[in-house]
């Protein structure tokens, strides 16, 4: 009986630790203390663009192709191949681009943060920083979160573009049952700017969570080189579960009560 309670209690405790850590990082940003390190924020933003933007867009591109062929075959089976655009518009923008973005963020950026900050922690660099009077949470963690907020909306929109392009390629060029104009007519009819805004909000919620979780596991790594590897693996587990939960909640909140489709009333 005690064993059965121990595991959930452990999860609850670590959830509390994560929450305290996130509050500390966010308070550094809210109080403006992070502005002292604007240069570092911009440097991190540059690293994020150079190292991650391309691979995120690449994964979203493959997912876009996938959406395109599934949509083309599904609508062909219903005898409405001209409507492949509906499937692509909804599948790309509303669901799979946020998910693919979240997966790749967790895999590339989240684990990268854990590996980087975790190795700083176990080589005592963070302690050295504190001794020298540099606030390590503001300098290491808050700047990276600010960098993510500066860069990622643009990366996300670029990824949406890559997904759309891939769906277009799959439906129009590869399967070739719809003309380009016919595809775009339906495609644009079934989405509007608020949909894009909701999708960006969903993606940014995932990105913020992933960066915070990555920072937490990196900052609290312990136990030598093995510890860094284990912390990296653990952060990935938590991130994947959270990405799916945020995706579900986002869909429920934004589109659950109102499908926002140009059909009927």
């Amino acid at each position, binding site marked *: 009986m005690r064993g059965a309670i121990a595991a959930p209690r452990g999860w609850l405790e670590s959830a509390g630790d994560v929450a305290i850590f996130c509050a500390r990082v966010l308070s550094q940003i809210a109080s403006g203390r992070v502005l002292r390190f604007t240069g570092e924020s911009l440097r991190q933003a540059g690293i994020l663009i150079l190292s991650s933007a391309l691979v995120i867009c690449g*994964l979203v591109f493959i997912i876009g192709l996938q959406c395109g*062929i599934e949509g083309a075959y599904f609508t062909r089976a219903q005898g409405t191949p001209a409507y492949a655009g509906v499937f692509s518009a909804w599948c790309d923008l509303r669901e799979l681009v946020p998910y693919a973005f979240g997966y790749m963020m967790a895999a*590339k950026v989240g684990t990268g943060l854990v590996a980087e900050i975790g190795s700083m922690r176990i*080589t005592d660099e963070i302690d050295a920083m504190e001794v020298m009077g540099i606030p390590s949470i503001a300098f290491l963690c808050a700047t990276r979160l600010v960098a993510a907020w500066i860069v990622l909306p643009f990366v996300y929109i670029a990824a949406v573009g890559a997904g759309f392009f891939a769906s277009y390629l799959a439906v129009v060029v590869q399967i070739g049952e719809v003309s380009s104009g016919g595809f775009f007519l339906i495609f644009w009819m079934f989405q509007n700017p608020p949909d894009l805004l909701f999708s960006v909000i969903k993606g940014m919620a995932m990105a913020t969570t992933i960066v915070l979780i990555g920072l937490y596991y990196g900052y609290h790594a312990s136990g030598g080189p093995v510890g860094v*590897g284990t912390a*990296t693996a653990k952060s990935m*587990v938590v991130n*994947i579960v959270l990405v799916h939960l945020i995706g579900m909640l986002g869909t429920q909140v934004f589109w659950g009560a109102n*499908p926002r489709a140009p059909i009927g009333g």
Partner: protein
Amino acid sequence: MMILTGKTIVSAARPPYPYGGEFVSQFMFVLRLVWFPLIVSTVAFGYGAPGLQAANFLVLFGALDRLGGFFVLASIREFAPFVTAIVVAGVAGTAITADLGARKIREELDALQVLGVDPVKNLVVPRFLALMLVTGLFDIYALLFGIFGGILATLVNGAPLGPFWATFFTNASTTDLWGSVLKCTMFGAIIAIVCCYKGMTASGGAEGVGRAVNQAVVIALLGVFAFNYVFTQTLLATHPEITVIR
């Protein structure tokens, strides 16, 4: 990585077979790590993406009973293997890379080789086989919970479940099921090879292990998705009968 794949397959088939115990322990290890994240992920994914969005669309036409048919396409053909691969790569794959990477930089792998123990046969082969088997089996599990997400979406819309099951079973086919399981098994193989390779070639101390995990999961995801695209395309094009809506 191709060389490692070849070596793994050859040494898995050639006697002696010393990896039985390691195989079982890896199998149990993956099972223990993955079951909970997989439940949460598949229910959330099934409820959100295909469930709510498709239900929204179908409610507009007053045809919510077709949701069952849509779940054959969505859950069996796409999302169950796909979510399983993501979760296995993220949870079990990272753990394998971290484990092998730590052994590499503590020079345990070199020590094994000096003792005349082949690391490919004793470490990589059991992980490869265990991950293939467990990913294939988890596909069925993910499928059940994905459909549970669809049932939730149906109930949220206040519709009875009978029509959902009726259209589900008239549309489901054995081809879909074996395609899904086969695809998922191949995902497991890709993940195992990438993660073992990156773990065994880790270098550069603490940061090296972290970086190896990072690269392993990125390459595994890209590989899985690229393979998924090719496989789905081939399956749909060579079996036109499974795309017919009944």
